[in-house]
């Protein structure tokens, strides 16, 4: 059974349709990437899936439960979905370690020492342990994003959502972050990642979902999507993004 199953999802903002007829599945241990032109609804899709935005219609089955039904504990669902943002969104008044432990202590009700232990373990995994005492303002972009990834992972989420995790970074820092996400991919962390970067997409996905004007146009592996696709929209999109590199 799929971990997430989306059925006929639609989203409109004040009557303006942004997503329609979205169907997709994500199984445990699977990693998928969402690509598409700017404004096609990628971020909106991710935000609907963890109910940061209320979907207009359709169903989202998460761990076998329809979370679009009233009476669902939204907090619990969100705590079970890690979210990594384009601009890091680290809490500026907290150190790296405190950013990680806040959710553990307040949402998972861990004891302080236990939370710190867990945070250290996770920070170690991405090579951030020596920066644990620093504030976000004292970190490079790549370090910030790695810290943000740890903050999400430390909660032991069932799935990790990433919304353009590398687009605010210069190439070198971007590589730093790609390496980390690739490592997660190899460890079979369940992921759904939005990106414009074909390099990242290829190295962290089992398959790529192509979104155009709020509709899923295709889902396939990188090799078959990237080059000379039959659909002109897809062909055009990848020609432009790949040529630019």
């Amino acid at each position: 059974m799929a971990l997430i199953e989306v059925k006929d999802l639609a989203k409109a903002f004040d009557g303006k349709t942004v997503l329609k007829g979205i169907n997709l599945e994500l199984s445990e241990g699977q990693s998928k990437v969402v690509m598409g032109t700017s404004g096609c609804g990628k971020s909106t899709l991710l935000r609907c899936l963890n109910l940061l935005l209320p979907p207009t219609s359709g169903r989202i089955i998460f761990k076998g439960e329809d979370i679009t039904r009233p009476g669902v504990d939204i907090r619990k669902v969100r705590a079970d979905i890690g979210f990594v943002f384009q601009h890091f969104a680290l809490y500026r008044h907290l150190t790296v370690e405190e950013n990680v432990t806040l959710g553990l202590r307040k949402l998972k009700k861990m004891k302080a020492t236990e939370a710190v232990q867990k945070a250290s373990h996770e920070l170690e995994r991405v090579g951030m342990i020596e920066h644990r005492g620093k504030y976000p303002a004292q970190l490079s972009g790549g370090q910030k994003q790695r810290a943000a990834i740890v903050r999400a992972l430390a909660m032991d989420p069932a799935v990790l959502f990433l919304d353009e995790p590398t687009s605010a970074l210069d190439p070198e820092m971007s590589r730093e972050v790609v390496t980390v996400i690739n490592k997660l991919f190899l460890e079979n962390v369940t992921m759904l990642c939005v990106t414009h970067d074909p390099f990242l997409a290829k190295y962290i996905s089992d398959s790529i979902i192509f979104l155009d004007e709020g509709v899923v146009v295709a889902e396939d592996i990188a090799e078959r999507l990237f080059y000379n696709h039959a659909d002109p929209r897809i062909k055009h999109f990848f020609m432009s993004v790949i040529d630019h590199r």
Partner: protein
Amino acid sequence: MDAFIQDLIAYWPQILAGLKNTVVLMVIMSVTGLMGGVGVFYLTLSSHKAVRRWMDGFISFFIGTPLIVHLFLMYYGLPELGIRLSAFTVAVIGFTLNVSAYNARYLATAYNGLDKTELEAARSQGFTRRETFRLIIMPQVMRMSVPSLTNQAIQNLKDTSVAFLIQYHDFFAQMQEVASTNFQFFKAYVTAGAVYLALISIIVLAARRLEKRIALPGLAT
């Protein structure tokens, strides 16, 4: 010895009592005004439009009307309804409303400067509105507002002198007393001014230390 100084010494116990009243009023209204300000600020973030409207109205009204009018309304107006409050009570209530409005506005200004994606991150982690307010918004907004909040505390100390107009026996009222016995108005009022200056210097120094202590990298106060 100068006659004025002799009078000051003669009136010393009274002046000291007045000074105490001034400081007490200032401390009380700074605390209640801060609590009120945080409360009003919290309500300005409410998901209910009506609540936000009322709070904006509250802030705008108390910033737009003179404090002394509120004091007079309560002190000279309420007895008409049979409600007789002491000058002290009137001062505390009036100042609290006034200071809350100002503090709420400072906090709201700081809030506008926050990085809203952090709030989205908190929501996506599963924090409730209230938790987000307490854990993410307040620690940042309070730090950023330290200069305005301490300026307000200075303002509070100065404004206590208004309370003498409703017969509160503050420091300025006592100096008034001294002046009216020896007719040395100039000396009495200048002395009063100097004392306020000294008291404010204490607040300024304390504020500087506080600012240094709670400053964080990347979170300028």
